[in-house]
């Protein structure tokens, strides 16, 4: 008898629990979800978000972080977005991050939604290309970037002094403002025992960002822009003459060159690069913080950048808009990004304030006002000739040509391998 009563009580409890669980989602479609899922490929934005954004009470933020290498992040995100309609409210993607290389894949589909309808309407202070990148062909804006990413030539002052005889940004820029000068200086650097660059793909973005045609034409034929050809020609020379190491852009071999005992003069990258990826240079013991400076280099370009996109079907639209507005229009937060995080924010007014501030300077860059340099560069950035395939085509080309540069295979084989890779990755693209 006792057992029976115990069992009944237990059953009643279970039912009560079930009932509890069912009520909230059934009764409150108007209220917003309690779980906010953000998809990202690294911890960069997470850090800023946790520091500068106050999450509404009762909302839990979930970070789903997948590295972007080999397209892994896109795969994870695609599965989630394609399942968005069927997912439970707490499982839905509420905000996701995308890079310049594949942002179009999401912007040009229904997987993302119009953020002006959610309440993000003021783009007066954001840089034009960051809005263009997140705008679909019909002119609908689907997201914002919390950073602007003009990419600079980052050089070691001491090595520049040795090679060029000057170390101040203006003077260095004058000696490196075209590819011809850059290539000539590479020879001088080599003669003094230095490397011009530490990766065979170091200058890739500088060329590829200035392409006059996209990766595929209107019939989906793969095409090589003259800028890409120029990069290949330059890298052939650089590798043959020993002006560069043959490491990959993200390889440890390259990163080791950022230590004080490194022999490499030039790196290319935007603000996020020297803040987030040059940890070795900032190492208190073996680094060389302060021995660096930036200038525009041979050609204007940008690299990467993190856009926040609003997925269709989020159950937290207000919070999505709130986050976006915070990171582009909240002066306090944007200022903090510049002052504390050494970001180049996506707010012209804030950036202008820092650019004109004589007291502002980056300790890493030996006191140079990086915001002023980047501000001057933003006018030259264009957003054009992008496709949804860019990330993996850029990656694939670099990986396959690297074998050619290293001398493992001849150029024809390397290209054939690249085409094989393209056929496997994107069945719709027609390769030569």
């Amino acid at each position: 008898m006792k057992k029976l009563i115990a069992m009944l009580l237990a059953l009643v409890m279970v039912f009560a629990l079930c009932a509890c669980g069912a009520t909230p989602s059934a009764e409150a479609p108007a209220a917003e979800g309690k779980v906010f899922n953000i998809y990202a490929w690294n911890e960069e934005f997470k850090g800023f978000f946790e520091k500068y954004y106050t999450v509404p009470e009762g909302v839990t933020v979930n970070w789903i972080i997948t590295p972007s290498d080999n397209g892994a992040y896109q795969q994870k995100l695609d599965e989630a977005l394609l399942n968005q309609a069927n997912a439970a409210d707490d499982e839905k993607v509420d905000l996701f991050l995308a890079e310049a290389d594949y942002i179009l894949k999401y912007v040009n589909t229904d997987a993302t939604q119009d953020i002006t309808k959610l309440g993000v309407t003021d783009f007066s202070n954001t840089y034009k290309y960051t809005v263009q990148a997140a705008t679909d062909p019909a002119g609908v804006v689907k997201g914002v970037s919390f950073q602007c990413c003009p990419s600079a030539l980052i050089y070691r002052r001491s090595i520049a002094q040795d090679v060029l005889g000057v170390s101040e940004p203006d003077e260095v820029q004058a000696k490196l403002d075209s590819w011809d000068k850059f290539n000539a200086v590479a020879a001088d650097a080599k003669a003094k025992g230095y490397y011009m660059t530490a990766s065979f793909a170091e200058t890739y973005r500088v060329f590829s960002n200035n392409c006059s045609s996209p990766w595929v034409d209107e019939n989906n034929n793969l095409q090589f822009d003259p800028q890409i050809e120029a990069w290949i020609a330059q890298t052939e020379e650089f590798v043959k003459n020993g002006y560069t190491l043959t490491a990959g852009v993200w390889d440890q071999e390259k990163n080791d060159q950022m230590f004080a005992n490194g022999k490499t003069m030039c790196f290319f990258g935007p603000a996020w690069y020297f803040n987030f990826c040059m940890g070795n240079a900032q190492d208190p013991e073996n680094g060389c913080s302060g021995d660096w400076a930036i200038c525009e280099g041979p050609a204007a370009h940008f690299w990467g950048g993190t856009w926040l996109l609003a997925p269709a079907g989020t159950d937290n639209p207000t919070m999505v808009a709130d986050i976006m507005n915070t990171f582009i229009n909240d002066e306090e937060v944007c200022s903090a990004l510049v002052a504390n995080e050494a970001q180049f924010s996506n707010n012209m007014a804030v950036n202008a304030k820092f650019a004109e501030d004589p007291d502002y300077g980056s300790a890493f860059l030996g006191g140079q006002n990086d915001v002023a340099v980047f501000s001057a560069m933003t006018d030259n950035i264009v957003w054009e000739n992008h496709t949804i395939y860019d990330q993996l085509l850029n990656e694939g080309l670099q990986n396959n040509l690297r074998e050619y540069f290293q001398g493992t295979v001849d150029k024809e084989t390397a290209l054939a391998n690249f085409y094989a890779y393209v056929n496997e990755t994107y069945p719709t693209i027609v390769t030569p």
Partner: protein
Amino acid sequence: MDKNERTRRKGVSYAKWGYIFILPFFIAYFIFTLTPQIMTIYNSFFENYRDGLTQVGPNFVGLENYVKLFTPDKSGTIGMVKYFGNTLVLWIMGAVPQIVVALLLAVFFTSYRLNIKGQQFFKTVIYMPNLIMAAAFSMLFFTLFSPVGPVNQVLVAHGVLEKSIDFLSLKVPVRVLISLMNFLMWFGNTTILLMAGIQGIDQNLFEAAEIDGANSLQVFFRVTLPLLAPILVYTVITAMIGGLQMFDVPQVLTNGKGTPDRANMTMVMYLNNYLQTSKNYGMAGAVSVVLFAVSSALSLFVYNSLSSQYREAPKKRNRI
């Protein structure tokens, strides 16, 4: 026991219990192996992939996927054939030493004349690498042999190399590393299987052979090997099927690219390439079907050639 009961007992069929006990296996086999296998074959006749976020297909295309698979590219290479060759080379480089060493160790460990002490310890040690996840093992080698890794550092520090080498960009070293890893991971397992096989052989035969004056080589080739044949064939076939499906070690070591020059791209890595970004079930299905056909054919071939040889061996001896 009266007559009646005896007849009744005769009528009871225990066979049904046999069927009931093996039923779970067949249900699991049907759901998890047979159905996916048939679905794979079915899928291989369709155009079915994703372009960005847009799903294309499934549209029936007949044998087009297979035609594409065997169409040579501009330089005349047929991808499928090349990757099959890679897989075979990588497997043979790993499996031959694996089976030879395992056989040797198994004979040593089971020999009552050698009577090796601390067998349990050695068995545990040689089995150990198999307990490590292949991916972790591969990652370890990746780090060891990277241009800034410890192997390069040691070689440069001792003056063996002038400057560090990117081992992972060279065809032969990468193949050797992959085979070495597969060898290290699997020879322990094979040793233990073969030991069980040798222990199953009647000890009297060894003693009889010795009394007849056979030396250890003769004992090995005339007694151990023929009687071990069934287990050996089983080992070779499972090793071969495993080898044809080689994936994790080269995938992690070459970061999924089969570098250099796709010379370390195995068939399953090739299959995986189709599934990664484009979710190309049609092409991946076609690769799987070819892989399935090839493994079946090779298994049959190995089974027939190895086992028939030993099946007929005693007869020949009788004739002499």
